């Protein structure tokens, strides 16, 4: 009984404080242009490449949650022609995954801030409820980074991304950017048009993070098949940090929940 009181009054707040510190640290990684200092968020350059071939090379500039510059070099395998595209000066591409993750973390911090040292927890279930809410936000934040959206090829083809480049993307090339865990990824699809007379069985591909060569789709009354897929990626160090912070915080939450559950189960199961 005494020990439980101590747990509620002292230990819970110690853990909450620790959680807040970790999450604030995590939130700082998702530097926000609007927060406090007001200064522009610094830009970071990432070089995306694969070790084996150098068919696709990309230099991406990330500013907070937006890609503000992108340079993509593509060597076409057919005629070894070198293609180069970049973002138009006035365009940015927002990585929704980063913004979502940041918002989830901020919501978790908000939940914790409302229960600061002055707040007195009276029941264990109160703490459990709070932990559940915080953990839901944290696991959402983590899931947003670890699971990129699954898109169908027509969705990629019709997304605003294709219109952002200068010179404009040739019609047989599709690009897609996303975050996978701690990595910034770029996929380039090379397509060829399926003639209506073709003997191939047309089967449109469903949604996927990464489509394989041979995937088919229909877009603008034209049938296409993916002939080549190039995927390049680059580790973003601060995303890695953020993911580690999420995991540590989730563990802390779970430990606190366990500590409280021990007491409640002990009281419930008293022999008759």
């Amino acid at each position, binding site marked *: 009984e005494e020990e439980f009181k101590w747990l509620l009054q002292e230990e819970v707040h110690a853990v909450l404080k620790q959680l807040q510190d970790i999450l604030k640290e995590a939130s700082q990684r998702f530097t926000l242009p609007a927060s406090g200092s007001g200064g522009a968020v610094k830009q970071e350059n990432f070089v995306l490449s694969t070790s084996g071939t150098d068919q696709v090379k990309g230099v991406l500039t990330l500013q907070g949650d937006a890609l503000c510059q992108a340079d993509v070099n593509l060597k076409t395998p057919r005629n070894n022609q070198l293609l180069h595209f970049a973002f138009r000066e006035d365009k940015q591409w927002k990585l929704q995954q980063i*913004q979502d993750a940041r918002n989830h973390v901020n919501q978790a911090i908000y939940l914790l801030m409302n229960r600061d040292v002055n707040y007195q927890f009276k029941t264990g*279930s109160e703490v459990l409820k709070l932990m559940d*809410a915080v953990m839901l936000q944290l696991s959402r934040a983590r899931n947003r980074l670890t699971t990129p959206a699954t898109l169908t090829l027509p969705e990629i083809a019709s997304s605003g991304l294709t219109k952002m480049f200068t010179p404009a993307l040739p019609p047989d090339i599709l690009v897609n950017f996303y975050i996978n865990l701690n990595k910034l990824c770029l996929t380039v699809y090379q397509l060829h048009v399926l003639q209506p007379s073709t003997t191939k069985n047309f089967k449109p591909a469903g949604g996927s993070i990464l489509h394989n060569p041979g995937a088919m789709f229909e877009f603008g009354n034209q049938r296409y098949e993916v002939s080549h897929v190039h995927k390049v990626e680059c580790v973003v160090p601060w995303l890695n940090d953020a993911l580690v912070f999420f995991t540590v915080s989730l563990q802390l939450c779970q430990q606190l929940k366990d500590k409280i559950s021990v007491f409640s189960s002990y009281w419930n199961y008293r*022999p008759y």
Partner: protein
Amino acid sequence: MAGNSLVLPIVLWGRKAPTHCISTLLLMEDASMIVTGCHDGQICLWDLSLDLEINPRALLFGHTASITCLSKASASNEKQYIVSASESGEMCLWDVNDGRCIEFTKLACTHTGIQFYQFTVGTQREGRLLCHGHYPEILVVDATSLEVLYSLLSKISPDWISSMTIIRSDRTQEDTVVAVSVTGILKVWIITSEVSRMQDTTPVFEEESKPIYCQNCQSISFCAFTQRSLLVVCSKYWRVFDAGDYSLLCSVPSENDQTWTGGDFVSADKVIVWTEDGQSFIYKLPASCLPASDSFRRDVGKAVENLIPPLLYSVLDRADKQLLICPPVTRFFCGHREFSYKLLIQGDSSGRLCIWSVPDTLEQQDSAKGLQTTTSVSLQEAFDKLTPRPAGIIDQLSLIPNINEPLKVTASVYIPAHGRLVCGREDGSIVIVPATQTAIVQLLQGEHMLRRGWPPHRTLRGHRNKITCLLYPHQVSSRYDQRYLISGGVDFSVIIWDIFSGEMKHIFCVHGGEITQLLVPPENCSVSFT
């Protein structure tokens, strides 16, 4: 319970009301019904009589996660439809008259707010739901099919929308959506009938985007009385804005570390704001916030923090200081039934609803006294009032002499093949009863109720403490013998029973802890268990 083609689920509640930790609530426009959503995903319908008596009528099951928002989904009074959304992205359309779920959809993203709006398409009025949530747009959803039609996009710093309101102004004849993003930027979209005709041709961008520096915005509401001002409630302050050019009229910080969770206009010159711990305060707005006054907008552009906070009018105290496990939900509704009503409704974690009727003529009161609750009822109280009391499935077998509370059933499994229901109880015994007969005993009253030991049942004793789980493996896979029933308990043991003879076949005590779950391994799994 199980016919050949039709399966009719029957729920027997028992004497204890189910937990109903209210997460959101809604008053139907004709004030005849309150709808509450809870953290477990159920929706409760409460009938509201003319003299404000509340009576729970039905629980709707349809969501698998916490309900995040509720909204009406039909305009006419002949159809009473509501829409509900849950934490996991589910959306349900309900007919609240008979409790039917009419439509269901699931999106990948969570909605946190929904507003109903009628667009004029040609000569017809089409119902639309405007949704916002964990995504940077406002989705426009068809109110009958729940299909996403198009979205309202942001050009400038798009971010999640934390709250939104629809402004219908008689002066401009133009309806607008005003929303505040999580980064504190106010955004305005004009929704006229053109918008709905433009479907998926061109994106709809915001008309205006203005930073108003409102962090942690909780609610935004439009003054229906003057149609000239907006109330924005943030966790640590509330602000009044001009609804025409969105300039700040006044800002009031919270006192004593209170956290605001929402607010609304009570009349042209009064606002009601409520806190996270369930208290509400009515403030009289200063003259600079009142369009009727000469000094309206006098303070625009001045240092607003220096404004004298408007007078504290009266305090609405929570009915009882019962412990709550999470913050209560408060909403203010005003409208007309047979009379015009202004009701403040609060729902809390114990399944209790409180209603305060806010009088039109609020005079300065003794702030210690405050406005008294008009009505208050909890789900448990409503259960206790019923006679006969709601039945539990094996209540008649669970009574222990000298103790009021029946023995709790802690685990159960239904075996349709034999029509048997197996219940594990907190004292470690297992009761096997014929399911239909038991249901008859509970639901239909008659002389058999008095018969002792009815319905025929068999009690298995072996566990020394609470049963936590039961499994009838033959139901999952036919490779298991029909006779076997497996039980696990908090006494660290697993027991295999023969359900026909009632014999204990085996007892396994090798576990180092309480048994929490029993599972059948998949068909192609090489590990076998007996």
